């Protein structure tokens, strides 16, 4: 059989639908029914582009306040080193403590993954800042080049403030940090 014919027949096999188990579907629908109700929507339809907007006054005021705080935090973030990473000399020779920060006020769980922890999502959970807007972690790192990313509620997110990104094996953009002894 020719290689192309083999591939074509394989693709046809892979296109075979995967059956939906009744029990799985029932459990999913139960979870959805038990989930918190979606916010009641005020639908505003633009005649040109149809979009759904949340326009309740209380929500809008809260969102504006959050945006202001986030904007101030972001402004401060961008005026500093990438990712607001602050490097200070570490007590352990050869290690430099780096502070990682990401602004994610809506996140429920954030962790730091990178080549320094073998991309283990459970190795370095980040803590929420006192104002609830950011997530922080201080980590001693060896001098040199490190690749890292944040995992925000299960999604891999590159550092928005990092100057350089590379692709990892999964097609997810990562960030790079260069750590020197005592200074990033």
């Amino acid at each position: 059989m020719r290689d192309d014919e083999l591939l074509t027949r394989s693709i046809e096999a892979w296109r075979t639908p995967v059956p939906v188990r009744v029990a799985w579907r029932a459990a999913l629908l139960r979870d959805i029914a038990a989930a918190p109700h979606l916010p009641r929507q005020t639908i505003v339809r633009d005649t040109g582009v149809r979009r759904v907007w949340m326009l309740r006054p209380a929500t809008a005021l809260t969102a504006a306040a959050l945006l202001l705080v986030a904007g101030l935090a972001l402004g401060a973030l961008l005026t500093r080193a990438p990712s607001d990473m602050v490097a200070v000399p570490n007590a352990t020779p050869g290690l430099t403590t780096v502070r990682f920060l990401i602004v994610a006020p809506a996140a429920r769980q954030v962790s730091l993954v990178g080549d320094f922890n073998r991309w283990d999502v459970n190795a370095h959970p980040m803590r929420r800042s006192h104002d609830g807007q950011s997530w922080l972690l201080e980590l001693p790192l060896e001098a040199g080049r490190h690749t890292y990313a944040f995992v925000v509620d299960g999604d891999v997110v590159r550092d928005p403030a990092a100057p350089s990104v590379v692709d990892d094996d999964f097609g997810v953009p990562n960030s790079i940090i260069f750590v020197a002894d005592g200074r990033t």
Partner: protein
Amino acid sequence: MKAVSRNVSPVDAVPAFEGTTQYMSEEQVVNDAVLVRRVLEAGDGGGEHAAAFTQLVDRHAPACLRFATRMLGTREDAEDATQETLMRAYRALHTFDESTPFRTWLFSILVNRCRTAILRRTRRERWISNGDHFEHASATSSPASLELKVELGRALEALPSDLREAFLLKHVEQLEYEEMAAITGRGVSALKMRVRRACARLRRELAELNHER
């Protein structure tokens, strides 16, 4: 390698919803938007939100399950990823932009869930060379066809995940490159390159498997 076995009776499965995993008609896209609006406009009480969302689940879950199964290799992981995807979509439905097809939005969530699942897998060997994700087929297939399906699973497994992702979206889900770009966040030319590389590697892999048999 230890096989992960789960007892799934053929009776416990319902047929996939045919026609929802191939090309989507303009009518289909419009209907999705209408369904989303119906979910958002439903009342708070009596589970009306969830009831309206059920139609979207039935329409898109089969395609999500197929992609996740081919991507992750096990039915169990695929069901977990699809469930997380649909729950996240439900919670974030008010952020859905109708100018984007619902399937594109949903698959962008699913692709991220699969990437995270692969990331979490680390050293765990979850690929079921002995046939977990063909368990349903094993109940009805001959030993020869089961062996063939296991080999097909191995050929997919041998692909790096980024190549496998692009290949599945293009040739199994039959998406256009523009939609794939919107889903994956990658450029069209990069995706075309990945699909080409995936096809070349699969041809070699399948030829070797065919030769061994």
